[in-house]
């Protein structure tokens, strides 16, 4: 009997330790060495992403898009992006960029270990990654300790830039900025739809329970407590955290139904976003609107998997394919990506792409691969909006390392694709509010 219990415990440890972060041991294959004709050594950049585990779909796409960015820098392309027309980085004697990928498996511990390995064993001069805020937090800790610049393109937990780190820089706007966009959008919505305040009053907050989801919900609660913007009042009728690897989300949806909110603010990764949307339909849950914090809700699989059932979700975005009307570069880069991988980019991959392009600009200006020189170049970064494929005012870091010029937009899924609906200068289509009930669809 004792044996059995021992065995059972062992089984649990095995499954839980490996499975819960959802992963499989796998070492990232070393990049193939170039033919040794060139005199210029490539500049090695480390990139840590969840290439296996539940987030592998997103991690793999980020890897593809980072490779595309490196390819655009290293080879000649006829595009109006910096470094596209030449080969390599002129500031470093035409050195190409070599991206060394590592698999975080979606786990903060692995992310930390891989960051150390990339810096100490692979000798990378800078790091990018790791998508998930919880992994970025630990990986950037290694970079800080070993004094290597870390540029984070897509993690939005606000606290990441509040740690007083010297070597940590973040391109993307964070969740506090994005949450502000939510509430500004709601004011705009009330005004344009002529809604009385009481019609959008009861709010439910639904979020996955790791660093990112919790940070987002904290920002939202903080803004509601502050009556942002200008005295807007909301009641939080449900505050629900959930584990994003759960198979059943029924009890969460039932709790939402019991609370009967006007709007739901969601922060979900992909598999959970899909499960919730299915369950909303199955259990006939009909809020007036669902406002989502990108991630799962902006992933192309969200729409391709759910089809018309994905419609009417509002999501904050940093990118949208329809913005190519305003900024043609978006369409051009997306076309190359589509041709190679048969999919459109999304707000996540657009930011990862931007991350590597910004780092290329930084390395070029640094003119050296010394960490201190790269850091100085990062501090001096000032990239204009026309060099970006995201709708920002540019890239310039403040003293905490946060990009001051990042901005968010709000998209709505209409007819199975994302359309920018806010702010009005980017809006190419009217929103649908309130969302039709499941019976009406």
């Amino acid at each position, binding site marked *: 009997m004792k044996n059995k219990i021992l*065995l059972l415990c062992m*089984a649990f440890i*095995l499954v839980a330790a490996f499975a*819960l972060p959802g992963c*499989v041991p796998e070492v990232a294959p070393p990049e193939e060495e170039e033919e040794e004709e060139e005199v210029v050594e490539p500049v090695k950049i480390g990139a840590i992403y969840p290439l296996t585990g539940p987030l*592998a779909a997103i991690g793999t796409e980020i890897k593809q898009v980072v490779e595309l960015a490196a390819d655009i820098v290293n080879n000649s392309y006829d595009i109006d992006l910096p470094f596209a027309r030449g080969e390599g980085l002129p500031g470093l004697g035409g050195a190409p960029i070599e991206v060394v990928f590592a698999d975080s498996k979606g786990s903060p511990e692995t992310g930390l270990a891989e960051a150390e390995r990339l810096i100490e064993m692979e000798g990378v001069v800078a790091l990018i990654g790791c998508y998930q805020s919880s992994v970025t937090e630990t990986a950037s800790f290694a970079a800080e300790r070993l004094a290597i610049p870390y540029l984070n393109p897509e993690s939005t937990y606000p606290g990441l830039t509040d740690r007083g780190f010297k070597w940590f820089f973040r391109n993307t706007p964070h969740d506090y900025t994005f949450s502000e966009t939510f509430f500004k959008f709601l004011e705009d919505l009330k005004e344009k739809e002529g809604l009385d305040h009481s019609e959008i009053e009861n709010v439910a907050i639904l979020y996955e329970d790791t660093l990112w989801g919790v940070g987002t919900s904290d920002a939202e609660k903080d803004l509601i407590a502050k009556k942002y913007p200008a005295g807007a009042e909301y009641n939080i009728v449900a505050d629900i955290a959930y584990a994003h690897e759960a198979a059943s989300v029924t009890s969460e949806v039932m709790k939402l139904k019991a609370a009967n909110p006007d709007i739901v603010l969601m922060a979900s990764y992909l598999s959970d976003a899909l499960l919730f949307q299915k369950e909303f339909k199955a259990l006939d849950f009909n809020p007036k609107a669902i406002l989502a914090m990108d991630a799962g809700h902006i992933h192309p699989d969200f729409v391709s998997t*759910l089809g018309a059932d994905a419609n009417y979700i509002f999501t904050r975005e940093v990118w949208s394919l329809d913005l190519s009307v305003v900024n043609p570069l978006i369409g051009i880069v997306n076309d190359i990506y589509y041709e190679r991988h048969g999919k459109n980019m999304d707000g996540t991959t657009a930011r990862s792409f931007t991350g590597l392009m910004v780092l290329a600009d930084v390395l070029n200006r640094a003119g050296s691969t010394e960490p201190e020189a790269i850091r100085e170049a990062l501090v001096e970064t000032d990239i204009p909006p026309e060099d970006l494929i995201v709708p920002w005012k540019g890239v310039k870091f403040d003293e905490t390392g946060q990009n001051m010029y990042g901005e968010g937009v709000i998209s709505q899924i209409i007819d199975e694709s994302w359309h920018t609906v806010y702010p009005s200068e980017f809006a190419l289509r009217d929103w649908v509010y309130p969302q039709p009930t499941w019976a009406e669809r």
Partner: protein
Amino acid sequence: MSELFIQVVIEGLLWGAIYALVAVGLSLIWGVMGILNLAHGDFLMLGMFGAYWLAILLGIDPLIGLLIVTPAMFILGLGIYKSLITRIVKAPRLTALLATFGLGIFLRNLAHFLWRADYRMLGDTLVGDRVITVSILGGTNFISVPKLLAAGGSLAATALLYWFIKRTKTGRALQATAMNRQSAALMGIDTERMYMLAYSLGIACVGVAGTLLTNFFIIFPEVGIMFVLFALVAVTIGGFGSIHGALIGGLIIGLIESVGGFVGIPALKQALVFAVFVIVVVLRPRGLFGWAD
């Protein structure tokens, strides 16, 4: 409120029945062979992909696909038994544990390699997204038809397996092998065949569960992990080796998860399930219906 509470209980029972079918196969394999099949969730994933590809490539609805996937999974179970499991049956239990764990990793990575990490879902199935409206205690409740089918199929498969083991000659031989391999062999039972049968039946069970899940659940290479941990808990609660124990264990877990998440804090619903697991291991290690040994 009572209307919602009844809904929560319904959902808990539906999910519980699905967890149970995964657990039943696991319990059967353990009961007869003493092997904890850690690749069980990954077989579930294979069953789901099997049903998915039948629907996408050949236009066979999962309900009919059930008749193809289940025997196919049985045969796959035979193949895996012949090539791998037969070598580890007599090895120390830890060896078997690690072997099935490795097999799980292999299957998961194979799925990654063959079908990429993408999330998939079947759109047009025979059952679709149909919902039955029922009236219980004056309130209106919904029952999702694909979930009901999965739960019903799960109960039916469990009942069939139970009948097979308790009432047929082969089933009795299985039981005898489970109790004592040597004595069973002395009575003229081909225990090797019994092992093979138990393993294949266990895999066929997740074939049924996987196929029925494709009617409403997302399909991706890591999907099995979501279920196998709960199945392990269900087997522990029900008692290792017990078919009806695994069923009741599954239902209990479904209810704890659903009701616990609704009444308490949703973020802690998994913690609740594992808390019950710990309590059972400490207070009644053989589970509710387990065979003492």
